[in-house]
């Protein structure tokens, strides 16, 4: 006998809503149905109503955690359409900020992974150390979360020598902490037991199901936009892609931990090789008729913007494809064959960011990190069948 278990819209792992309907046979999941779109805000439509300058701030607010990736992708897109050359220094500053945001996002999600597997101490430690990164981001941009640093034609604030020193000091503190976390996730037996060989995605499945970011790299596919389609200053900075072949939840977490180290390396290299010069060039308000795509490696994976402009100061069509939108399908497939208690840990290993994905939010009465077995929903579903 199979039973339908609706989980969500308040989904089990993060305090953001999504609805999964699991068909289970005893304890084992046999089918998953996903209802996405509880966060749909109609951003794509709103983008066509606002000017290119205003859209910088709208794209920033598609997702608060990956806001730097979103603005980088957006301004890069408009600069491509305008055929505008950005100063070297601005490109390096964008890279530094992107990597700081990556550290902050990865610390956040690794902490939540710890919480989901019942390791709350690591969650509190991660969030304590995250404050160091937040402090650095605030130092160079003026806000802890929403950076508003990127603009069409460059960046709005420069990095001074003192700020450089402060960032370097912070990075060296963080690097020590990263080593500790790596030790926890590679050696601790509890962590291994909850994450190892759970939610396996094979290499060819990862490609054909459309996974991106740490999910695809955790399955052994060499795909990182920073290396495959270098943007900004990434082609001038040497670094290695972090790849794990296993394809399980632990591999995805270890990819993130490995990326913490590469991000720290990239920041230090970029600070040492920061070129001198302008940080910004003037940009026109109107964009000529063009059709361009732009790719950025957000903390969660490949971010895709597609602009069709028509010569006015507003976009004609702007398509936003966020990493979670690509990752939800492979993860839903990976849950088939697993048991119910593993759901939150597998879901979190994908780093879900539903605000990114649907551009509209939704809530239900049931809130928090409990997961939901609502009789009413089950009954309603039975009636419908």
């Amino acid at each position, binding site marked *: 006998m199979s039973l339908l278990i609706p989980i969500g819209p308040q989904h089990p792992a993060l305090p953001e809503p999504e609805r999964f309907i699991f068909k289970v046979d005893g304890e084992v999941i046999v089918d998953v149905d996903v*209802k*996405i*779109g509880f966060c*749909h805000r*109609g951003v*794509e*439509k709103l983008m066509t109503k606002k000017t290119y300058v205003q859209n910088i701030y709208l794209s920033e607010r598609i997702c608060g955690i990956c806001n730097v990736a979103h603005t980088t992708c957006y301004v890069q897109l408009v600069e*491509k359409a305008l055929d505008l050359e950005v100063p070297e220094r601005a490109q390096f500053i964008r890279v530094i900020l992107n990597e700081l945001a990556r550290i902050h996002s990865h610390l956040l999600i690794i902490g939540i992974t710890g919480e989901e597997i019942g390791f709350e101490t690591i969650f509190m430690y991660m969030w304590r150390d995250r404050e160091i990164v937040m402090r650095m981001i605030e130092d160079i941009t003026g806000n802890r979360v929403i950076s508003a640093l990127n603009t069409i034609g460059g960046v709005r604030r420069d990095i001074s020598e003192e700020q450089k020193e402060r960032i370097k000091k912070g990075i060296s503190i963080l690097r020590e902490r990263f080593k500790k976390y790596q030790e926890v996730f590679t050696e601790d037996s509890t962590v291994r037991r909850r994450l190892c060989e759970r939610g396996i995605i094979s290499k*060819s499945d990862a*490609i*054909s*199901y*459309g*996974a991106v970011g740490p999910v695809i790299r955790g399955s052994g*596919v*060499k*795909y990182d936009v920073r290396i*495959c*389609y270098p943007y900004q200053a990434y082609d001038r900075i040497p670094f290695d892609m972090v790849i794990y072949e296993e394809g399980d939840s632990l591999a995805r977490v270890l990819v993130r931990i490995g990326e913490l180290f590469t991000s720290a390396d990239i920041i230090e290299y970029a600070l040492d090789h920061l070129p001198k010069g302008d940080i910004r060039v003037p940009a026109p308000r109107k964009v000529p008729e063009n*059709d*361009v*795509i732009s*790719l950025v490696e957000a903390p969660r994976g*490949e971010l*895709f913007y*597609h602009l*069709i402009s028509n010569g006015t100061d507003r976009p*004609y*069509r702007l*398509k936003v*494809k966020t990493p979670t*939108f*690509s990752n*939800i*399908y*492979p993860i839903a*497939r990976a849950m088939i064959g697993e048991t119910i208690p593993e759901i939150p840990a597998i879901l979190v290993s994908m780093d879900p960011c539903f605000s990114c994905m*649907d551009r*509209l939010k*939704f809530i239900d009465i049931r809130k928090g990190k409990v997961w939901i077995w609502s009789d009413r929903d089950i009954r309603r579903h039975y009636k419908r069948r």
Partner: protein
Amino acid sequence: MSEEELLKILGEWGKVEQKEPKDYRVYMDKEKVPDLVKCLIEKVGDIRTAAVTGMQRNGKFIVYYHLWIHPLDVMVSLVVESENDHFPSITPIIPGSHFHENEAFDLLGLKFEGHPYLKKKLILPEESPEDYYPLRKEE
């Protein structure tokens, strides 16, 4: 397999345009899309759907299938144009296209033929009217 050989294959199916390094556009007939994708998987290797952009322009519907070809690490966008809102689906060939096509169906009303589980209200709230497509241009 090299990029030139890929371009040769693509050239047989439609007009190829290079936008940037490793980024190609192929302007082609909509009926041929599934055949081309099948052919590419056979001859080149695994393909990932990066995105599907649907849009409406001058009363016509245009769909971009953005495909990432893994062994060559190249982005190929298949551009198809149509008077009506029916398009071929590539979900039976690449399962990962499921959500991308479904999103275009939900927001723009593009009907992808051959999509195994195309459903309305994947993204829009359940309360919204049946024939409501927010991204369609009012003309």
